[in-house]
């Protein structure tokens, strides 16, 4: 009896320690990744790396300025394309939440979110690269905006659903038309939630490479024309990482450091907005 009890207590302890051990082993890769990126990345980053164009192999130096600018262009393009649609579709879902169309749209949002990014790359290639006979930053922006939409729609819908009904009633009772109630009362109140969603979706697409392979492609020269191929940080990392040259590998680490800093920065700002501007009812 006594031995039985001891055995049970021992098992209980053992299990707890195992759970703790496994849980902490799983964040070991994260620490390692961050360590590698910082150690290998910081070493290459200097002013030249940030402000100069890539040099052909054999010449020392050079930087990733075009990739930084390209990523910025792609973020702006995809945001401009997806934010208006995303927010208004989110409003639709929260307003007509029980309708047949709403259910269907919701299902489509889920499916779209789960669609592999490479598939979106192929489809946008068929839509915009084949007819216009060339890779372009615009098609890359479109591919990324398709990936942003589900996140924006979902967060907008969920934020607006949390708005108390009394808020809307109060506005309508004052004789404010419905569309103005939504645009001037409900939306501003939920702004922090929507902004969080947008930032999270931007963070998600900033690091996407697969949809850019056949759309924005890459470009070792400077390019401000959105109808031409454009470079991006993730593409440059991929290109350098797969090359056989150690010098380019260290460039890949430098670009990774910047990319991770940007992505985590977006995530942090999003989290900050969510906490600081949280509307309480």
């Amino acid at each position, binding site marked *: 009896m006594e031995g039985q009890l001891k055995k*049970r*207590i021992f*098992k*209980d302890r053992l*299990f*707890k320690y*195992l*759970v*703790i*051990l*496994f*849980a*902490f082993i*799983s*964040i070991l*890769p994260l620490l390692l*990744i961050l360590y*590698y990126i910082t150690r290998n990345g910081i070493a290459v980053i200097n002013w030249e790396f940030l402000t100069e164009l890539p040099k052909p192999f054999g010449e020392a130096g050079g930087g990733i300025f075009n990739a930084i600018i390209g990523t910025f262009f792609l973020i702006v393009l995809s945001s401009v394309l997806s934010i*208006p*649609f*995303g927010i*208004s*579709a989110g409003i*639709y879902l929260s307003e007509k939440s029980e309708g047949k*169309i709403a259910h269907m*749209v919701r299902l*489509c*949002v*889920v499916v779209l979110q*789960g669609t*592999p990014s*490479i*598939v979106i790359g*192929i*489809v946008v*290639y*068929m*839509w915009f690269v084949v007819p216009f006979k060339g890779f372009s930053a615009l098609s890359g922006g479109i591919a990324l905006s398709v990936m942003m*939409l589900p996140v924006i*729609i979902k967060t907008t819908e969920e934020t607006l659903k949390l708005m108390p009904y009394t808020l809307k009633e109060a506005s309508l009772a004052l004789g404010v*038309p419905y*569309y103005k109630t*939504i*645009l001037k009362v409900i939306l501003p109140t939920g702004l922090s939630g929507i902004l969080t969603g947008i930032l999270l979706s931007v963070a*998600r697409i*900033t*690091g996407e*490479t*697969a949809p850019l*392979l056949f759309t924005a492609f890459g470009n070792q020269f400077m390019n401000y024309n959105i109808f031409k191929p454009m470079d991006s940080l*993730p593409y440059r*990392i*991929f290109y350098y*990482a797969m090359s056989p040259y150690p010098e380019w590998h260290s460039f*890949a680490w430098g670009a*990774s450091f910047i*990319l*991770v800093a940007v992505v*985590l920065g977006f*995530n942090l700002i999003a989290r900050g907005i969510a906490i600081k501007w949280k509307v309480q009812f």
Partner: protein
Amino acid sequence: MKSNIDRSEKVFQGVLAFSAIIIVVLLLAVFLTLAVASLPSVKVFGLKFFFGTTWDVSAEKFGALPFLVGTLLTSFLSLLISIPFSISISIFLGEYFKEGPVSTFLRSSIEVLAGIPSVIYGLWGLFLLVPLVRSLENIFGVTPHGVGILASALILAIMIIPFSASIGREVVTLVPSDLKEAAYSLGATRFEVIKNIILPYARSGIFAGILLALGRAIGETMAVTMLIGNSNFLPTGIFSPANTMASVIANEFAEATGITASSLIYIGLVLFLVTTIVNIIGIYVIRKISLTASKEVT
């Protein structure tokens, strides 16, 4: 004045409905584009596409079995590796340490892990996992490629842990406390409560989390493309280089024309359908759980 408001009202409603319907149209268009563009390949190879083992661009002979096997091996292997970890995290955050600095630290670390771009996982894998796998291969006495199914499965496992863990944590927290208390009052240890009450109760939710992680693993492209070794032959074991459905598209689509492109899009169509089905089942299970949970609360 009045009619002006009415008109704005109508326009507003129209814009909302339009942007909602555009999502449906977008998804249909994605499916149709894939279906139409893969048609030439579907006509030539039909269902035999899935059993053919040769992928020869110059002979225009295409069979996707190596990629199907590659995808199945990498994704299930990665699930197998990730499950003990994601369940541990779920129990850790949902039962042992629900709040406090340790739990906040672990939770935010997992979130950061989910946010790291896949190309960076690939880069890191190339410089840390590949040498690791290579030394493992030397020990086992197989050709030391380094890159291959095992390396890809390892990186995938790391990448999907956050997905199954976050859903697992939620369902573990949803287990009603009266059930747990009843078990404690009968003298059960915490381990027995977890084993006999929490895990059976949260079973379907954990399963759904694993399904969603599977969907993610199947569709993951960049990290796998960088680590799998780009070989179009049927993999012979977990150490052999291979290609998954996603990675073969990433590797070959940019240069492909004609029937080759069409065959790659055929693979893309299959990829799209498989991930869609896996995701829908996962979401359905989760929705069912949250419905029953909300009923029990009220």
